[in-house]
C-alpha cells in the first residue's frame, strides 16, 4: 500500500460534447478529507462521478489506493458514494438498505446483517434498523446513507453535497458529526459542496473548482489567508472580499514592494475594513444590515468603488453618513488585474 488514496492525473471529462473538466490534477492522501468547493456548474459532481466511474474520462488517469482504475467499471473501484438525495430504497428497511451492497455481492445474510448493525452503530442509527426510509427524518436518512457507504469499508468515500438537503441547524450538527466520523475511521473522503463555511469547517484541504479547472488546492487556512486568485478570494468568505483598483484606498502600515509597471487589485475582507481611519478614503453609507452582534455596512467610495465593512452592531454608522475607509497593509491581498492571480512580491 503506497501512494495517495486518490490521484487524478490530468483528468478531463465531457458532457454532451462540452468539456466540463479540464486536465484536473488532484491528489488526496490516505485518510485525508478533501472538500471540492465551487459554484454550481463548476464540475464538482463530475469530479466525484469520474472517480466513481459513472462518467468516463476523455483524458488522464484515475488512481485509487495505488491502482489505476481509469478503465475499471464502477463496481470494481471499491468506492462508495453518498448521494445528495441519499438514494435509499423505500421498500427496504434501514437494515436492508445498509446491507444492500453486501447482499448484492453475495455476502452471507447473517454476516451482512451483523455488519449492517455495526455500521449503523458507527453513525448512530442502530435504533432505526427496522424502520423504512418513509418513516425517517432528513437527518436520519442522512445517517442511513452514511452507514450504507461505510459498511463495505471502501478505499474512498465520495460525498455529493450530502448536507444540502438538511435545514441549517441539522446541517451544522451533521457537519460536525461527519468530521468526527472521518477522524474515527481515518477514511479517505472527497466531499463536494458549494457551501464555503462547510468547506472551511470540514476540510483537511480544499480544492476550489471553477468552470472545470482547479483554481487552488490548499488547507482552509491557505485558502482563507492566501487565496490564489480573485475568484477564490471572493468565493470564500461572506460577504465577499472587497476588490478595488490599487489606489482607491491607501492602506496604512508598511507597504510590500509593488511593481512599478503593472496595475494591481487590492482585496481586503469586510472584517478587516475600518470606517474610522482619518487618512482613509472618503465614502458614504448606502445601507446597513444588522446581524446580531455584527453589522455590515455597504459603502460607496468617493471614486465610485463599492466596499463592505463588518463593524460591531453597537458602533454601526447611520445610513448616508460620511465615513473614512481604511485598511492595514497586513490585511491586504494583491492580485494581478489581467489574470486575477495573486501577486507575490519577489
Amino acid at each position, binding site marked *: 500500500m503506497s501512494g495517495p488514496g486518490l490521484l487524478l492525473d490530468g483528468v478531463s471529462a465531457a458532457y454532451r460534447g462540452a468539456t466540463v473538466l479540464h486536465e484536473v490534477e488532484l491528489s488526496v492522501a490516505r485518510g485525508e478529507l478533501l472538500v471540492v468547493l465551487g459554484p454550481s456548474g463548476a464540475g464538482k459532481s463530475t469530479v466525484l462521478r469520474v472517480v*466513481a*466511474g*459513472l462518467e468516463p474520462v476523455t483524458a488522464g488517469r484515475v488512481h485509487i489506493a495505488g491502482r489505476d482504475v481509469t478503465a475499471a467499471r464502477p463496481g470494481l473501484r471499491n468506492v462508495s458514494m453518498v448521494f445528495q438525495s441519499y438514494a435509499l430504497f*423505500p421498500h427496504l428497511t434501514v437494515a436492508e438498505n445498509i446491507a444492500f451492497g453486501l447482499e*448484492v455481492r453475495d455476502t452471507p445474510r447473517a454476516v451482512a446483517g451483523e455488519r449492517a448493525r455495526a455500521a449503523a452503530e458507527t453513525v448512530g442509527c442502530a435504533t432505526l434498523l427496522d424502520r*423504512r426510509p418513509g418513516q425517517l427524518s432528513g437527518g436520519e436518512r442522512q445517517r442511513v446513507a452514511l452507514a450504507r457507504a461505510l459498511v463495505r469499508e471502501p478505499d474512498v468515500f465520495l460525498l455529493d453535497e450530502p448536507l444540502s438537503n438538511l435545514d441549517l441547524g441539522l446541517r451544522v450538527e451533521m457537519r460536525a458529526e461527519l468530521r468526527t466520523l472521518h477522524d474515527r475511521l481515518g477514511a479517505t473522503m472527497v466531499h463536494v459542496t458549494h457551501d464555503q463555511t462547510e468547506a472551511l469547517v470540514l476540510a483537511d484541504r480544499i480544492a476550489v473548482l471553477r468552470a472545470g479547472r482547479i483554481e487552488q488546492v490548499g488547507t482552509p487556512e491557505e485558502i482563507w489567508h492566501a487565496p490564489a486568485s480573485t475568484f477564490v478570494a471572493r468565493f470564500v468568505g461572506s460577504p465577499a472580499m472587497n476588490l478595488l483598483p490599487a489606489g482607491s484606498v491607501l492602506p496604512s502600515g508598511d507597504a510590500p514592494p509593488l511593481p512599478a509597471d503593472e496595475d494591481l487589485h487590492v482585496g481586503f475582507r469586510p472584517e478587516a475594513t475600518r470606517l474610522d481611519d482619518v487618512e482613509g478614503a472618503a465614502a458614504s453609507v448606502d445601507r446597513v444590515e444588522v446581524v446580531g452582534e455584527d453589522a455590515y455596512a455597504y459603502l460607496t467610495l468617493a471614486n465610485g468603488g463599492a466596499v463592505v465593512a463588518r463593524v460591531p452592531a453597537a458602533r454601526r454608522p447611520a445610513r448616508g453618513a460620511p465615513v473614512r475607509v481604511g485598511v492595514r497593509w497586513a490585511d491586504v491581498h494583491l492580485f494581478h488585474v489581467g489574470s486575477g492571480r495573486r501577486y507575490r512580491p519577489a
Partner: protein
Amino acid sequence: MRPDTRSRRQLTLMLAPYLVGLVGLVLLPALITLALAFTEYDLLRPPTWVGLANVTALLDDPVFRVAAINSLVFAVVAVPLRLLIALGLALLLYRRAPGVGTARTAAVLPTAVPEIAYGLLWLWLLNPLYGPINQLLRTGGQNGLTALGRTPPQWLTDPTDARAAIIAMSLFTVGETFVVLLAARRALPRDVYEMAALEDATGWDVFRRVTLPLMAPVLGLLAVRDAIQSLHFTFVPAFVVTDGGPPPYATTYLSLFVYRNAFEYLRYGYAAAATLLMILLTVAAVLVQWRLIRRYRAFYRL
C-alpha cells in the same frame, strides 16, 4: 353574490355535461340493469318480476359456468402475460437511442387499430391453411406438418388452440400499459441505479432488487386495471374471430354470453343477472388484488 357561491355555481355548470352524461349513459342503465336482473323481459312484453329466479337459473346453467371458467382462465393467463410483455417493452425502450421512437410507435400501434379491424386481421393471420402463422410453423416440415412432424395448431377449430389464439391476440394490445410503464420507468431516480452500479450489481440484480420493487406500485395498479378490462377485451375477438366456438362454447366468455342472451335470445332479465354476477366476480378479484397491493403500498410513503 358571494365569491364562493359564485365559483361553486361555475363549477357545477362546468361539471354539468359530464354529470349528465354519467347519469344518463352509465348510472341510469346500470340501475336499470340491476332492476332487470330480477325480472323476465323480452322487449315485447313488459318486464315481470321473478325475484332471484334468474340468478339460480344462471348458477345451474352449464353455458354460464363454461363462460365464467373461460373468462377466469383468460384473466389468469393473459393478465400476467400482458403485464410482463408491456414491462419488457418498457424496459427495453425507455432509453433514448436511435430507432427507439419507431419501436415505441410499433409497440403502441396494435392498440390504436380499431378492434373489429384488429379481429379481422387475426382471422386472416390464424387461418389454418393460408394464414401466415401456420405457414411459418410449417416451414421445414412436410405434408402440412411442422418441422417436428406435428400438426400445426388448429386455431379456429380446436377448443384449446382457439382459447390460446384469443390470448395471443390480447398480448399485442398492451399499448396503454406500455406507455404507463415507460413513464414510470423514466421517472425512477437515476441515483439508485448509480448506487447499484457502485455495488457492482448485475443486470438481474438491478431488475430484481431495484427496478421491480420501485415499479411495483404502478404494476399493481395496472394489474387491477387489466383484470377488470380482461372481462371486456375478450368480447370482440370471440365475436369476430371465433364466434364463441369452436362448438359448443370453447371461447364463449362472460361478455359474449351476456351479449348472446340479451341481443340474440332476447332474454334481457337473464343477461342482466349475468352482468350482475360478472361485476361481483370483478369486484371480488379486485379486492383480492387490492389487499396484496395495500400491503406493499405502505412502504412507499416517501
